[in-house]
């Protein structure tokens, strides 16, 4: 288990001291996180890292998972798709069963002083509030910028019963009668995906895939998914390639549950054609060290997404001081200030233009990378995430804009 003190060399002792100062103010309060899965997915991943660290800070935090049958999870999957803009039909019976499962879970659960509910699956637990009171927080981890109106209307009646709703990006905020707070996700600098790696290991990964580190390398790490625009990445590479020596790495997992996956793969293969300088790498799920190495060994990192929930791969690249070019979508503009800590683009041509600029001007590119790492250090590491959660809990008990915690 990672000890909280291990973050001191990364973020500074003063940052940890502030976390201890805050957590002291939560003495006597119990905090319960509730979501719908113990393993898999970003929410479970962050809770698994966060809860032990909160406990080490002296916070009485715990994590419970709701139970549901196949029908329940089929309905919540429809919620998820509908909130992301996929047309879905949810029947009255499905809505009713969704609420029933929430009620069954609520009947069995012991609730803490602060109930912190993650995502739509357990949102109906709030009905219990009438009976038991307590403080209730709802955290939305998904893209909420253009939700299906019917699903939104259904969820809204429950969201508004909470004290506070938490979103990951400003665009996800709605007009609501309750307080809304911005808490961005984070990366863990001590995880396999982000920790420092020996140069020999980085070299060995590139050698294994036959990529030449003595020549410029542009890399995008992401699922082979239409929204990550791998075909657009290849087109941008081809434009830049006309004027310079270049290799392109597209690496990520295959989207096996995505019906569009094979079509995208076919398009990627066609677009990559027989170009020996394009490396399309399908990585198995446990490839965090390889991803880390590929990012560290690249000259420039791309994230040319058409849409993003948050786009934490950008933080991962910037944390490694990599000059990064990414689309101005979702949470990416929070991570990159254009021309200060990276480059934001809106088109294939713009991406190609900046690939050429950054490879031809390594000093400027290095400066972007250095600033990028500093920005991530201050704003997107797990310690900042913990600070935001502690403030979120404390804000339940303090109304004013300026709070003096004596």
């Amino acid at each position, binding site marked *: 288990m990672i000890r909280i003190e291990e973050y001191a060399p990364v973020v500074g002792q003063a940052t940890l001291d502030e976390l201890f100062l*805050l957590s002291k103010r939560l003495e006597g309060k119990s905090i319960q996180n509730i979501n719908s899965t113990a393993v898999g997915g970003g929410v479970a991943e962050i809770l698994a890292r966060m809860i032990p660290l909160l406990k080490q800070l002296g916070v009485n935090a715990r994590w419970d998972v709701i139970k549901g049958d196949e029908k329940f999870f089929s309905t919540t999957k429809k919620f998820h798709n509908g909130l992301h803009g996929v047309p879905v039909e949810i029947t009255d019976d499905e809505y009713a069963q969704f609420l029933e499962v929430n009620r069954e879970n609520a009947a069995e659960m012991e609730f803490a002083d602060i109930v912190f509910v993650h995502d739509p699956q357990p949102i109906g637990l709030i009905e219990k509030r009438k009976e038991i009171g307590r403080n209730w927080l709802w955290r939305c981890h998904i893209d909420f910028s253009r939700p299906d109106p019917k699903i939104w209307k259904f969820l809204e009646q429950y969201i508004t019963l909470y004290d506070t709703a938490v979103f990951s990006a*400003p665009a996800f905020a709605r007009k609501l009668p309750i307080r809304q707070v911005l808490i961005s996700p984070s990366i863990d600098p001590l995880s396999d995906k982000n920790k420092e790696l020996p140069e020999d290991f980085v070299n060995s990964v590139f050698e294994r895939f036959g990529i030449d580190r003595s020549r410029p390398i542009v890399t995008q790490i992401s699922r082979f998914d239409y929204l990550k625009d791998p075909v657009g990445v290849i087109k941008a590479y081809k434009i830049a390639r006309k004027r310079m020596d270049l290799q392109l790495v597209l690496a990520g997992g295959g989207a096996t549950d995505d019906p569009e996956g094979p079509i995208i793969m076919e398009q990627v293969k066609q677009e990559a054609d027989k170009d020996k300088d394009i490396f399309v790498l399908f990585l198995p799920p446990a490839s965090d060290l390889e991803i880390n190495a590929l990012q560290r060994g690249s000259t420039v990192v791309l994230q040319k997404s058409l849409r993003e929930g948050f786009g934490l791969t950008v933080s991962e690249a910037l944390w490694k001081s990599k000059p990064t070019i990414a689309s101005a979508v979702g949470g990416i*503009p929070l991570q990159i*200030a254009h021309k200060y800590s990276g480059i934001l683009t809106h088109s294939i041509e713009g991406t190609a233009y900046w690939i050429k600029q950054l490879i031809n001007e390594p000093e400027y590119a290095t400066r972007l990378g250095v600033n990028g790492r500093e920005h991530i250090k201050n704003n997107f590491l797990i310690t900042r995430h913990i600070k935001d959660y502690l403030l979120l809990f404390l804000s339940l008990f303090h109304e004013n804009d300026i*709070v003096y915690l004596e």
Partner: protein
Amino acid sequence: MSEFQFYTKLDQTILLGLKAKNAAGLLEGIKTVPKSSIYYHTHRFLHQHHYLSPEPPNDFAYWISEVLNDAVLGEKISSIDVVQFHSITDLRARLEEIIASHLESTEKLVESPQGEEFHFMASKTFALRTPYIAHNISEFRDMLQQVSVNSLYYHIFDAKLRLERGENDFSRWFRDLGKSGLADAVLQLDPYTHTLEGLRKRILVMVKKYDTN
């Protein structure tokens, strides 16, 4: 002799659920949002990018220049001399004045692309006592080297404009100690043109100079 209690501060970002898609919408928002929102958008960059020099401009100027591509208005907003203001009310009035006057001379409103609207936010600030309490200038100097940049930020920026104390906390304390020369020297610094670490160094040099005199 009075003592100096170092505080630190941590901010929570509040989403107001209000957005603008052109300069007119931005002006409407600026008129109605809480003071803490004006403070947030004129200081967020400074806090989040405190290591950069030159600083990126405030959120309003950045959005106008980079999203609306209005270099003229962007420059006018980014060059507002924030250090001269003693209250958010005055700063808000200046922002309103500049945008309103620009809109009068503009025929066509530029709309932001979908998804790149300006989202109004605000901050809720939690101020906490640190264990650092200076009883004299020498202790102050030692402690100023150890406190977090959040502490420095609180005593220099928040104290003057957000808490409307008229001047930064350091100058106020130096004055109480009868060191008005040092108080004035720190007051005359333009903190908006330094990185926070750069600012810390400048103040330490001043304190050393006045302490030995």
